[in-house]
């Protein structure tokens, strides 16, 4: 599964993109976050305040209970500040 990070999530994790093999039992965005937090101190720091993180699945905004399927593109980023 392709996972993307933007803005300060990218800075803290150290990469903008990861291709990950998820272990069994990760079926939602929220479960993916909990697993990502265990991967490195940078990941843990990036996801330490869940209220500051937004998620997208296949380039649409998605909540924590959004289901994940093989081949999905998942992205995490802070609240947007364009315009």
């Amino acid at each position, binding site marked *: 599964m392709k996972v993307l990070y933007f803005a300060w999530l990218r800075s803290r994790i150290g990469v903008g993109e990861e291709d990950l093999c998820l272990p069994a039992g990760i079926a939602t965005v929220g479960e993916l976050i909990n697993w990502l937090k265990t991967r490195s101190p940078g990941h843990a720091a990036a996801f330490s305040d869940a209220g500051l993180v937004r998620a997208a699945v296949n*380039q649409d905004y998605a909540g924590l209970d959004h289901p994940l399927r093989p081949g999905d593109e998942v992205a995490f980023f802070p609240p947007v500040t*364009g315009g």
Partner: protein
Amino acid sequence: MTVRVQREDFDPGAEIAALGVGGTEIGAVASFVGLVRGGTDGVAAMTLEHYPGMTERQIAAMVDEACRRWPLDGATVIHRFGRLTPGDRIVFVGVASRHRAAAFAACEFLIDWLKTRAPFWKLEEGAGTSRWVEAKDEDDARAKRWQKED
């Protein structure tokens, strides 16, 4: 309907002219240009990061929604990314309609939604450091004005 996400500058006059030639029923073109502000804290430059693919997709969805809500004859959204300095243009929103009320409403709707839904992030540089700009509650409040009661 035109959506462009680009590093290069754009020409507001050319975009407004293009919106006006959509037919002789167009009576109003409302537009908005967003500029980089210097700020009192002496921001020297900013870099706009975005999520290629999702950005275009989200903006196109906003434009579609605007067309459903108002009788529009044309809409153009251009958003830049990359490094920009104070006074630079960041964003253009232009809307053509038969009547001005629809043009103004759709133009404000699009910029309010862009501010809260389009995946862009500003990294400000100033006084030797850089920091990610935080989202504003005020922008969320303005975007919420457009939420429909379903």
